[in-house]
């Protein structure tokens, strides 16, 4: 995004800006404060939507202590249960890791695309693309696990990659903005999924509702002992490492980042911008496809119509993790914890699981608006450098 630069050229070299501690601190501080703020606002929402606590506040004049203590009890028990449900015991931890698995992969998908200057809102569609291929492989073929599982995973990657590359191709060839095309492709994928689930290829025999066949045992991600967490988490962490290596240690990543930061300069330097867009969207799509596949082969084992809901989370994760694979992993573990703890929170404190979605939205909002966080906590801006806006206009 073009901001106004002062017309005068600075004639002197500006003093070096070493990667000082303050920057590193801020890189951690803003997300942490964002999380904290989101939890606070989430708590306020809980308080005013709980009928009894809200009633206590309505008569706060008569008994202020009661209202405050009831509010405290509610929020602390809710967040306590949330924490308990996410980290309280090995089973909880297993659930957190399980929930994090597809989130890591989908977050990496959006982050990788961001690095190449592409805003991938299409993770949801690519997840469907990946599941359509991997599930077919997983319930049709009959092979030993060591062969079947890898083939199913690769199929999932390729399915997602195909779906993602459509948007990349459209952008490269016609300049169609990927935000628009990926949104549209999400809904096209959703309808395709519904269609396929009613065809004999996918539909479970004897069912009239759109539900797929179950994947073969040999294509399932094995779990660790009695816990539900499975090899998917290992796959996700390995993938994160591969994405990091790709981005920061290889020529492909160099090209991605150059095209992402300045496509015109990259083109002048002889890089193929169109090719980069297609490849980046294909890889991003593949990662999303893997996310859907990990969920399919590790948790649900069959497909039903509808979005899985990872697409928007993935954007949040990429932003929260500052489009860095390690950041994405940490952010995904956090979101996984929220998801895993939500059920216990509902059971213990009677707070609906959807409050998690609200908290997640608030986290992205605060992370995306560091100026807002600084304003709330009165942190002085380090310099004029703000987060780079990610998209350019619809045009061009």
């Amino acid at each position, binding site marked *: *995004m*073009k*901001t*106004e630069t*002062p017309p005068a050229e600075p004639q002197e070299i500006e003093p070096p800006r070493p990667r000082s501690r303050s920057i590193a601190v801020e890189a951690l501080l803003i997300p942490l404060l964002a999380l904290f703020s989101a939890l606070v606002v989430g708590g306020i*929402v809980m308080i005013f*939507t*709980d*009928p009894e606590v809200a009633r206590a506040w309505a008569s706060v004049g008569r008994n202020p202590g009661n209202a405050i203590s009831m509010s405290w009890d509610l929020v602390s028990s809710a967040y306590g249960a949330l924490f308990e449900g996410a980290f309280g015991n090995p089973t909880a931890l297993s659930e957190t890791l399980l929930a994090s698995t597809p989130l890591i992969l989908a977050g990496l998908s959006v982050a990788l695309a961001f690095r190449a200057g592409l*805003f991938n*809102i299409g993770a949801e569609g690519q997840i469907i693309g990946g599941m359509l291929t991997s599930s077919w492989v997983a319930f049709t073929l009959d092979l030993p696990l060591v062969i079947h599982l890898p083939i199913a995973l690769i199929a999932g990657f390729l399915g997602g990659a195909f779906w993602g590359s459509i948007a990349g191709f*459209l952008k490269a*060839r*016609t*300049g*169609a*903005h990927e*935000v*628009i*095309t990926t*949104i*549209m*492709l999400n*809904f*096209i994928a959703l*309808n*395709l999924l*519904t*269609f396929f689930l*009613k065809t004999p290829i996918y539909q479970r025999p004897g069912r009239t509702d759109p539900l797929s066949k179950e994947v073969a045992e040999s294509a399932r991600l094995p779990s660790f002992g009695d816990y539900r967490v499975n090899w998917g988490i290992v796959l996700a962490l390995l993938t994160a490492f591969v994405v990091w290596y790709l981005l920061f240690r290889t020529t492909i990543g160099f090209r991605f980042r150059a095209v992402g930061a300045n496509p015109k300069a990259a083109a002048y330097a002889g890089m193929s911008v169109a090719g980069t867009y297609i490849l980046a969207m294909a890889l991003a799509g593949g990662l999303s496809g893997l996310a859907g596949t990990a969920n399919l082969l590790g948790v649900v084992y069959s497909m039903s119509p509808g979005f899985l809901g990872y697409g*928007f989370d993935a*954007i*949040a994760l990429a*932003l929260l993790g500052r489009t860095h694979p390690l950041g994405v992993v940490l952010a995904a573990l956090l979101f996984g914890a929220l998801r895993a703890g939500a059920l216990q929170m509902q059971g213990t404190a009677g*707070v*609906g699981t*959807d*409050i*998690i*979605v*609200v*908290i*997640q*939205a*608030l986290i*992205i*909002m605060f992370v*995306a*608006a560091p*100026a*807002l966080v600084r304003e709330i906590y009165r942190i002085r801006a380090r310099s004029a450098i*703000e*987060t780079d*806006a*990610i*998209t*350019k*206009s*619809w*045009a061009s």
Partner: protein
Amino acid sequence: MSTIAAAPATSRVSIRRARVLGIVFMALGFAAAWWFGFGSESGLDSTFGLNSRSSEVDLPPLALPSRETALLLAAICVFLGAIQLTRGFGKQANLILGVAVGCFILAFLVWAARDDSLNMVGMLQSTLLRSVPITLGALSGLLCERSGVINIAIEGMMLTAAFMGAIVGSAAGSTWVGLILAVLAGGLLGALLAVLSIRYRVDQIVGGTVINILALGLTSYLSAQILARYQNLNSPGRFPVIEIPLLSDIPIIGPMLFANNLFIYLMFILVIGINIALFRSRWGLRVRAVGEHPKAADTVGIKVLGVRYRNVILGGMVAGLAGAYFTLGSVGRFDENMTGGRGFIALAAMIFGRWNPIGAFGAALVFGFADSLQNTLAILQVPIASEFLLMAPYIATILVVAGVVGRARPPAADGQLYIKE
């Protein structure tokens, strides 16, 4: 220098495009003849009902010989294709494309209704109704984007407003109060988008995404916490049908256009009003200037950020109206995620309609038609997967942004920050 260079390259691109279009017309014609003409057994009639439920005048249904009618329509397509290939329609080509596609769809309907009857008026009526939230949503997006702020939060604004309309309308026992609060809720989310994207310089797509997630989370959470426990808070009632005297008695179009509830009339008023305001008024000139070249607007003393704030909030309010339609105009209660992606179809309609109110309305009608056709076909038990019809709006939008069918040109500064020293 461009006047000198102005001899616009009557480039091979446009010639090739003209040829492709001609071939497309031909292909539509032959496909229609093959599938729908010869696909209809000869001697059958397709019957089209022309009465709606409320009309007083009883029109006899229109019975057409299926095969002959479909073949005639197919012939028109082929004829148009032949002209396009030999003489070319020039600038009218896109319009003719519309005609050809129209003929193809009519031929399809004739085939689908062979030896059966199809209520034409009913289908058109449902087309109009289904297009209401899409049109209003598209207007919302258009108000924002014409001033240079991308709004992909239409969905979230509609959903929140739908919820507000239901709960407030029920609590107050008045659909009007519900409507007003719904519109205000939309405006509030518009204000949030504006503050995030203008004051805090959040990427506009990210800001919109935040609002979408927030809306989905909040409404689902609140509906589980509150509506599920207090059912009476989820029965706001609906706005009644207002029949406009005399006009509503006109056969066919009367019941279609003049016997509707408040929302349909408001939609017409807004489409026409925003069109006039945008292209004929001082306000509109300034809004468009801000969306195309904010710095130029700034240098002539227009408050760029003020215009953007105002427009995004207005856009939010129109999206709020669209949301209220779900609970107060159509269903009469709130269900989780009841907008079901229509905010994104509205976004598609805005783009398909090229950021123009009339165009957006036209696009919404096309999308509404696809939706209603899908329903009709289910009733006629036509063996065609309805999913492909439901995909049509999205595919059409991709074709438009990819420049396959004319190119949509968004406001030049759409999505760009404007920062002043």
